[in-house]
């Protein structure tokens, strides 16, 4: 038997992180945005049946990029966790924060245990509040850290570029059609400037809509409703698209956008602290 080579812990972790990141990068990106009445999930997904977004509980939604079988496993674990907790205590006792913590612990343990391969997934857990201030969005990278996000978040292969795109353009209080259109724009923009077109039938869209009368706020937007939202917005703003975007940017540098950016930074710091505990 040969003597095992010594690998420093730093190196081992860096290798595992790189392995996970590469796996995630193969997946298509998706975005989660706050809009006036809730939170919208948008991603490119040619499949009608294998979802990237789903309902976890009344006000809690789940989005994932990466390896399907791994995030599906985590999703079902989350549904079981939420349903059991709601059954044991009360429906109000199921929170996104609690769920995100459980996911973080799970991902963290898997990431740092030598016996298991790290999960190649990046998750978003979002909870819609009674008002936009009550909305919570948590991003959970493969290593089990938690990032508390505000406004908009992107995960998956192209996440960094899309995040930057969204940070510049997203503002509070957008309508659903506006947020959806911005999300599609972000997903289809390419770093080389050659934007590609994502047809509506390749889009998966879901919302957590706080105005829904039902207790369960999660809803998929499909077919005619999706087309209507994309179209209505497109027809209204395609001609004035570019100028209006610029206007928004200029107009809100010291306004909402500045606030959002500040919030994101603050949230990230808080999240890092939380993850470091």
């Amino acid at each position: 038997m040969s003597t095992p080579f010594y690998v420093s812990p730093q190196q081992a972790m860096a290798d595992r992180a790189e392995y996970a990141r590469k796996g995630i990068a193969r997946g298509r990106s998706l975005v989660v945005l706050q809009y006036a009445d809730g939170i919208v999930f948008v991603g490119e997904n040619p499949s009608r049946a294998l979802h990237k977004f789903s309902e976890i509980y009344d006000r809690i939604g789940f989005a994932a990029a990466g390896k399907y079988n791994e995030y599906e496993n985590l999703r079902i674990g989350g549904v079981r966790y939420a349903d059991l907790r709601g059954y044991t205590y009360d429906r109000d006792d199921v929170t996104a924060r609690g769920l995100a913590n459980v996911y973080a612990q799970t991902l963290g343990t898997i990431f740092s245990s030598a016996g298991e391969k790290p999960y190649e997934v990046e998750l978003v857990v979002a909870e819609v509040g009674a008002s936009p201030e009550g909305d919570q969005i948590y991003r959970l990278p493969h290593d089990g850290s938690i990032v508390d996000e505000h406004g908009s978040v992107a995960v998956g292969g192209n996440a960094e570029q899309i995040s930057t795109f969204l940070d510049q353009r997203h503002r509070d209080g957008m309508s659903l059609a506006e947020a959806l259109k911005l999300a599609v724009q972000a997903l289809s923009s390419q770093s080389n400037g050659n934007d590609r077109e994502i047809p509506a039938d390749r889009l998966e869209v879901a919302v957590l809509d706080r105005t829904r009368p039902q207790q369960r706020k999660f809803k998929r937007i499909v077919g005619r409703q999706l087309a209507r939202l994309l179209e209505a917005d497109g027809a209204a703003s395609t001609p004035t698209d570019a100028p209006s975007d610029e206007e928004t940017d200029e107009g809100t540098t010291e306004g909402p956008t500045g606030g959002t950016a500040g919030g994101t930074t603050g949230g990230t710091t808080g999240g890092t602290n939380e993850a470091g505990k």
Partner: protein
Amino acid sequence: MEANPRSTGRLPAAFLTPGSSSFMDFLGNHSPDLLPGKRVLPPLQGAIEAPHGTTIVATTFPGGVVLAGDRRATMGNMIAQRDIEKVFPADEYSAVGIAGTAGLAVEMVKLFQLELEHFEKVEGAQLSLEGKANRLSTMIRSNLGMAMQGLAVVPLFAGYDIDREKGRIFSYDVTGGRSEEHGFAATGSGSIFARGAMKKLYREDLTEQQATTLVIQALYDAADDDSATGGPDVARRIYPIVTVITDEGFRRLTEAETSEIARSILEGRLTQPDGPRAALL
């Protein structure tokens, strides 16, 4: 225990093991003590005294189904609660109304709702209406031991069948025996009188408005002859709970709507105490 859902530790292995889409199965494997059916009763002398819910009625109409219940819970000859709710949405397209031991019934409904919701979330699709009705059957059967001790739960299940595009009603016995009812059905202590009333009033071409009036008429008649069924309580503004399920989903009538129907029925009964011989619907 590792399985403690309160701890913020990682998800226990059982949570991440691929398996059944049923919440009850998961609960049975993971923490069986939480399943109502797994409870063992100590040996008892005679029946246990606990509040009982009474009358639930349902009727179909073209395009949907109406399920309604009175508001009284009794314990022996005493009124235990005047405003109990015995009709609940099971999911978007079905509802369940419960007669029998109130405590167990409410728990059963909670678990049933969760069972349907859990399946829907895990599978990404709803159970068929038959599937839902069968699931309820299993739950009642698991309560048989308690039913023998006098703690029976007898639900009435109504839903809109999306595949067949019509409302359907299922009734149950204490052993979980399930039968589909055509037109109308009732369960609970006042059901005999309610069924008699519905038999006279039911037609196949009722409108939604007429169907909701019909069930309140039936509940009025049940309350008239059965002391355990509560009639519309105008003084306290407690009216029956009436739910309508159509292809648009579940809807519970508002208090204003039920009070209006109930008051018009009461008005009619002032001159015709024995029921609608005059213009009814």
